[in-house]
Structure formats: structure tokens, C-alpha cells
């Protein structure tokens, strides 16, 4: 069953068309990777889904409900969390304040405490540094914080934008492990990555974006062995 359906989506920046009528779907429990080069429209697609950018045409359906016109801040309580490109943690606030802001839409204090403990178990380093300013964390720790913050809203769909960007290889592996664990806990994952190899290795299916259109799609394992994909994105 599809948790998210994107139908003929078109997005413009002024007169420039960034997304040229793309359609794809994310099924319950899947990890879906959106791969493509710089400027292909991956981030734009995610930002349109989570309501940060308005679409010109097309439809976005989440859990059977049309969310195309719903403002971004209302989607969080509907179960969509977005970990933005560049992490965008609140640098002058503490780790704990950041995590609590992630739970802004939730009101049950006991449940919140449970979620917080769950996140500390998953990211022990966040607990060690809970009183530290987020801006002083390393890139990998900030990525963990951004993911922990998103999980605080208790999402059913998590949208991750370039989680491996700028991280050392050790952190990249750790982050991808965590994404898989989050998924095993029942959270559906929509992942945008330039590191196509890594993304395809954990994804169920993938879509390849090229200048605002979907060029290819299919099972991640099949795409990984596709000659065109290998040549363009896996640098082989």
C-alpha cells in the first residue's frame, strides 16, 4: 500500500521549471532512494512534499489524503518528518532543546520522555552532549541530531535529504546503518542521496532524477547493475 503518492508534480522557481511532471510512489515500510546529479531536482522534490515550496501542478497524496495544499508545519503532526539538507540544527540551542523542538507538535510528556530515551539509546552521543550547543557538534553528530530531532515527532514517513553529505566514511556507514534500523522499526524512508552506491545498497526501490524528470526507476538491486546507472552515478 502506498503511504505517499506523487502524481505529475511540477515545480517552478520563477519562470524556471525545476520539476517537470514527475510521478512516483513510496509504499508502507519501504526505503525509497531518489538519486541523481546536482540540480536534478531531488531537494526541490522533497521540499515540495513537505510543504516548504509550493507546487504549480500535480498532486501529493499521503495516507490517502491530498496534502498538496497543506502548509508544511501541519504535516509534522500528520506523521511526516523531514531531515533537511545541511542538517540545519538550531546552532545556538542545546542538543536537548533541539530534540524537544522536534517534538513541538506532541503534548504527552510521558510519551515524550520515552521517545527521548529511545533516541538516546540509538544515538548515545546525543545524550553525552545533551547540554552542549548544537553548533559545536561535529558534522556527523549534527546529522545524528537532525535525525533524532526528526524522530522526536514520532513520524510514520521520514524524508532524508543528503544525510551523508560532508561526512567522513565512518560516519557515512554509521548513518546508513541507523537509517536501516529506523526503517526496521516500521518507519517508511524516502531518501535523497548523491552517494548513489550507498543509497542503492539499503533501498528497496529507487528513482533516478535527471533535470527535473524521472529517467529510470526500479528495484534498487536491478538499478545497481544497470549499465547506464553504473556509468552515470556509480562512477564505474
Amino acid at each position, binding site marked *: 500500500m502506498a503511504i505517499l503518492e506523487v502524481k505529475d508534480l511540477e515545480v517552478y522557481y520563477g519562470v524556471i521549471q525545476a520539476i517537470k511532471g514527475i510521478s512516483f510512489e513510496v509504499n508502507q515500510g519501504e526505503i525509497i532512494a531518489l538519486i541523481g546529479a546536482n540540480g536534478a531536482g531531488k531537494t526541490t522534490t522533497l521540499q515540495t512534499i513537505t510543504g516548504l515550496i509550493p507546487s504549480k501542478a500535480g498532486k501529493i497524496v499521503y495516507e490517502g489524503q491530498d496534502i498538496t495544499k497543506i502548509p508544511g*508545519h501541519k504535516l509534522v503532526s500528520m506523521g511526516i518528518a523531514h531531515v533537511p539538507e545541511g542538517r*540545519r540544527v*538550531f546552532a545556538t*540551542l542545546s542538543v536537548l532543546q533541539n530534540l524537544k523542538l522536534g517534538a513541538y*507538535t506532541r503534548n504527552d510528556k510521558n510519551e515524550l520522555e520515552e521517545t527521548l530515551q529511545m533516541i538516546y539509546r540509538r544515538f548515545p552521543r546525543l545524550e553525552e552532549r545533551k547540554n552542549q550547543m548544537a553548533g559545536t557538534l561535529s558534522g556527523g553528530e549534527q546529522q545524528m541530531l537532525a535525525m533524532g530531532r526528526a524522530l522526536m*515527532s514520532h513520524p510514520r514517513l521520514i524524508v532524508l535529504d543528503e544525510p551523508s553529505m560532508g561526512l567522513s566514511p565512518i560516519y557515512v556507514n554509521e548513518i546508513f546503518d541507523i537509517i536501516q534500523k529506523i526503517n526496521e522499526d516500521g518507519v517508511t524512508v524516502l531518501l535523497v542521496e548523491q552517494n548513489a552506491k550507498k543509497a542503492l545498497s539499503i533501498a528497496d526501490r529507487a528513482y533516478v532524477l535527471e533535470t527535473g524528470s524521472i529517467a529510470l526507476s526500479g528495484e534498487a538491486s536491478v538499478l545497481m547493475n544497470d549499465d547506464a546507472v553504473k556509468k552515470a552515478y556509480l562512477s564505474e
Partner: protein
Amino acid sequence: MSFLSYLINGISLGSIYAIIALGYTMVYGIARMLNFAHGDIIMVGGFVIFTVVSTLSLPPALGILAAVVLCTILGVVIERVAYKPLRGASSLAVLITAIGVSYLLQNVALLIFGSNARQFTSVVNVPGLKLADGALTISGVTMVTIVTCIVIMAALTQFINRTKVGQAMLAVSEDKGAATLMGIDVNRTIAITFAIGSALAAVAGALLCSTYPSLTPYTGSMPGIKAFVAAVFGGIGSIPGAFIGGVLLGVIENLSKAYISSQLSDAIVFSVLIVVLLVRPTGILGKKIMEKV
């Protein structure tokens, strides 16, 4: 003794600047705009109290309450009608609009109340304090002003650090997009900020007019500009900065009036600002502007 008296009166005047500066600094921190109409909200508050207390002969407490409520509504309406449509427009467009709103408020007041100064009856009925065998007198309104400012500062700090709305304000001031992703309604948060700032302006109006009991449509203009200077002085966007900047400005102004020249006091105040900004462009407590890579 007279030095102490000038100092205390300076702190009191500075407390008023600080309360006004809080409105400037919070709105700047969260909406990234300079609301030049903020000073005129003070004047509106003054006229509301004048109308309730002097014209309708109702108790002063009711006048202050009416001023706070009406100014809060006015602030939110101004934001909704004049500034919200400009979200995303160039900051110059917003600045010009704010100046336009300022003139609008002044001229509406001019239309209703005329240009003659009105005698404002003090809303503070606290007896003064005589110290050191009467050598040092502190008036009731001076004490009330200083205490009010401290209470407001403490309450605001608690509000921002302890409540969800306060934390949302911090998030919005840092990154509106990321705040939206947390489920924070950015527009609502900005509206709340305007509401708080305008309510504080009404309080400042009550204290200002009780200290200097002459009310005209331009009453809020100069204190508004000085409070803006105080906010920049302390580091715009910083709440403790607004407090420190306001008090310092009031003290500098009062001491220069007393010891140098009452005509030159404003020039001295603005010169100090220029010097401070030359040495510390972000103000006393201002954050360094981080360049995004």
C-alpha cells in the same frame, strides 16, 4: 548626592528605553525587520490611557489595561495587514512600509486629538522616597519604572526559556525553514512576537507619559528612535542586550543633560552609538553574523 539622583533618574529613563527596545529587538530577531512604527504604538498607548483616565474619568488601572489590550491588537493588525504580505520582499520595502505605518499612526492621532499637547495625569500613585535626610528624593514613578522593567525582563526570559512558544520563537529566529519542519507555525510565532512587543510598548507609554506628562502625536517618535539605538547598542536581536543598551543610554543621556548640556544630550547619545558601532559593529552583546557557506 545630586549625582546619585541623576543616575537613578537615568536608570529609570533607561528602563523605559529598555522596555521599548525589547519590542524592537524581539521583532528584529524573529521577523528580521525593523519596525519603525513601534515607537508610535507607545503614543497610541498614551492616548488610550489619556482617554480612559482623563476624558472618561475611569481608574488608571483600567486605562493601562485598555492600552495594553488595544496596542496588542493594533500591533497584530499592523503585522497582518502591512508586513505579512511583504514576507519575502526586500528588506528595503519592509522598512519603507514601517516608516509609512509610523506616519499613518501619527497622522491619525493628529486627526483625532489635534496637535496641542495634552496634560497627562500620572497613572502611578506611589509615594516618593526621601533618603539621606531629604538630600536624595526618588519619585514613585521612578521606582515603579525600574521595578517594572526588571519584572518584564525576568518574565520574558522565563517565558522564552520555559515555554513551548518561547522555544518556538528561538527556533524561528534562527531558521524559519527548519522551524517549519518542526511543525512550528512561523506566521503565528511572528504574530505572537508583535503582540508581546506592542503590549510592552503600551506599558512603556504609560511609564513614559507618567514621567514626562505631555502627550502629543509625536510623543513616541523620539523615544522610539532612542530605543532603537539602545537595541542596536546592546546588540540587536539580543534580549539582555536591549536591557543593557536601554539602561546605558538612559544614564548617558541624563548625565550629559546634567553635566554637559541639555541641548547637546541627544547628540552625545548618538555619538556614543557611533563610537560603539565603530568598535563593536554587532553591539555590546550582539552575535557575530555567521556567514553561511
